[in-house]
């Protein structure tokens, strides 16, 4: 069986949550595997991150280089090619960095690539059977891939339960010297922090959230009227922002805001994992969608199969009536 490595992103010296999830993935590929963590960065940050992984990994490869202080995928790719042994399996989280890094890395390492893996079903050493999702999670696919000469596997964040293992007191091994000259055809300039916007949905207890099912800009008012009647705030999924119907500050999801409401009304939202990744704290989740197969119904507490353009106004009216009758 090939040696398994896990690339662990770190920020300000704190390793990504993927660290313990990728141990679980390695064990699912090979129950006897003791994966090696690989961390790339510079200065006290990378040292702190390596140290904090000593409980979860028996061996931690530290690659420190001033040019790698900011995780530029073009540079990290070259560093990984220089450092990793031929034929290994590399696991990474399928986030904005993994999406940027991994496809090209698999070409440079001449190994198999599979993105956004949600489950591992087993291997005979030559072929690995795994599960991916397609069409926004509406259906799943079994995928069989040849890992005999190695693989790069991007793993969906949160899809695997972190592995509970006794503390390993792992060794940090410095591999910085293996990194040769790094390319410079793409140069990091700066990070622009998202504008705060007129509302902070991350602090709101009740959200009326709309997705593609709202269909057009004029219909946003239907959701706003419901939110007003409930004393809630309107948030949304990505397609609504892409279409410029609402501001980016109202987007819930991995590329938007993380919210922790008590109540989340998902109206015309299919429930992609990128959207669900932005909903924390197990709110009471009500899904309204006319597609009974929408993945949102698998995670919602209450489901309503109906056209939201007709259902929401009726709900708004009844809430207004019941509020006035309660006074």
């Amino acid at each position, binding site marked *: 069986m090939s040696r398994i490595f896990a690339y662990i992103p770190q920020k300000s010296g704190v390793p990504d949550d993927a660290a313990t999830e990728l141990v679980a993935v390695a064990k699912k590929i090979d129950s006897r595997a003791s994966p090696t963590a690989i961390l790339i960065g510079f200065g006290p940050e990378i040292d702190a991150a390596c140290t904090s992984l000593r409980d979860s990994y028996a061996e931690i490869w530290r690659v420190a280089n001033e040019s790698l202080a900011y995780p*530029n*995928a*073009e540079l990290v790719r070259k560093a990984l090619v220089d450092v990793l042994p031929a034929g290994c399996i590399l696991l990474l989280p399928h986030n*904005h*960095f993994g*999406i*940027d890094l*991994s*496809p*090209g890395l*698999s*070409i*440079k390492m001449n190994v198999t*690539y599979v*993105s956004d893996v949600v489950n591992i079903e087993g291997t005979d050493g030559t072929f690995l059977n795994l599960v991916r999702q*397609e*069409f*926004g999670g*509406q*259906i799943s*696919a*079994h*995928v*069989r*891939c*040849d890992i005999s000469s190695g693989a790069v596997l991007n793993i969906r964040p949160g899809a695997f339960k972190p592995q509970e293992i006794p503390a390993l007191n792992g060794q940090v091994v410095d591999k910085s010297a293996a990194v040769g000259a790094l*390319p410079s055809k*793409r*140069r*990091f*300039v*700066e*990070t*622009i922090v*998202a504008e705060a916007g007129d509302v902070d949905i991350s602090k709101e207890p009740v959200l009326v959230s709309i997705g593609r099912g709202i269909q057009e800009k004029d219909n946003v008012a239907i959701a706003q009227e419901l939110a007003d009647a409930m*004393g*809630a705030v309107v948030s949304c999924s*990505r397609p609504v922002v892409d279409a*410029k119907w609402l501001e*980016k*500050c109202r987007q819930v999801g*991995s*590329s938007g805001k*993380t919210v922790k409401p*008590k109540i989340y009304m998902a109206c015309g939202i*299919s429930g992609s994992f990128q959207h669900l990744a932005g909903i924390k704290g197990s709110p009471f989740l*009500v899904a309204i969608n006319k*597609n009974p*197969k929408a993945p949102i119904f*698998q995670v*919602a*507490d*209450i*489901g309503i199969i109906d056209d939201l353009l*007709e*259902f929401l106004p*009726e*709900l708004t009216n*009844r809430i207004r009536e*019941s509020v006035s009758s309660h006074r």
Partner: protein
Amino acid sequence: MEILVCARRVPDTSENEIEVNSAGNDIERDDLVYSVNEADNYAVEEALQIVAKQGGNVTVVTVGNEDDEEILRREMAMGANRAALISDEAFCGSDGKGIATILKAYVEKNHYDLILTGVQAEDGGAQVGGMLAAMLDYPFASLVNSIQVVDSKKLKISREIESGNREVSEIDLPCVLAIQTGINEPRYVGMKGIRQVASIDIPTFGLSELGVDAASVGEAGARVKRTDYFVPAAGKGAEILQGKREEIVDKLIELLRAKGGLK
């Protein structure tokens, strides 16, 4: 600037419920509505906006079959001035690396300053752009949500990273960029526009024209194969409220009030 946009025709998930066919080896394709992959359409719009300012040409290419020609015509109706269909029996069953290998051969027969793809297809792996760039030794960036031309040798771009933040970089040309949805507002294409390009001849390129090694593409070259489709076992699942709409509304209000969701 010479820009190539790689696009795909995919089932439109806003128009269809995607289901597994009875054999379990594909999705049910009868009566599906197809359209150009959403992110690819943003990529074409971005290319058109760059060429409008800088001059040059936009070529749209797809790897597929004669059915896929319709999206090439649609993107020509949007304003792309050239299109190419890459089609060969030998290409069927290609994995992401196979598609990138085919596109590399096409790119090397031509000259492009900038190659755009959509960041991901509904049934894809967000992989072809990054693989193509690595094969060509071009720099690459994914999740690109703005492009500014600095001069004839470089661009200033931003990528979408976590929490709505943006990572700004300079990137040398030629390069490959995978475009994120929302980067622009794709123009509307009417029936009239489609009719105007209906009779334009779209060149087709196959294995021999591109000089691709048959063993590196198609089923033969694929190291990643989908074996079957299935519907994931539902978790606990939502309690679906049943009854007339008024009854459902009343039940929901009761639940919301119990959970403290009404002011």
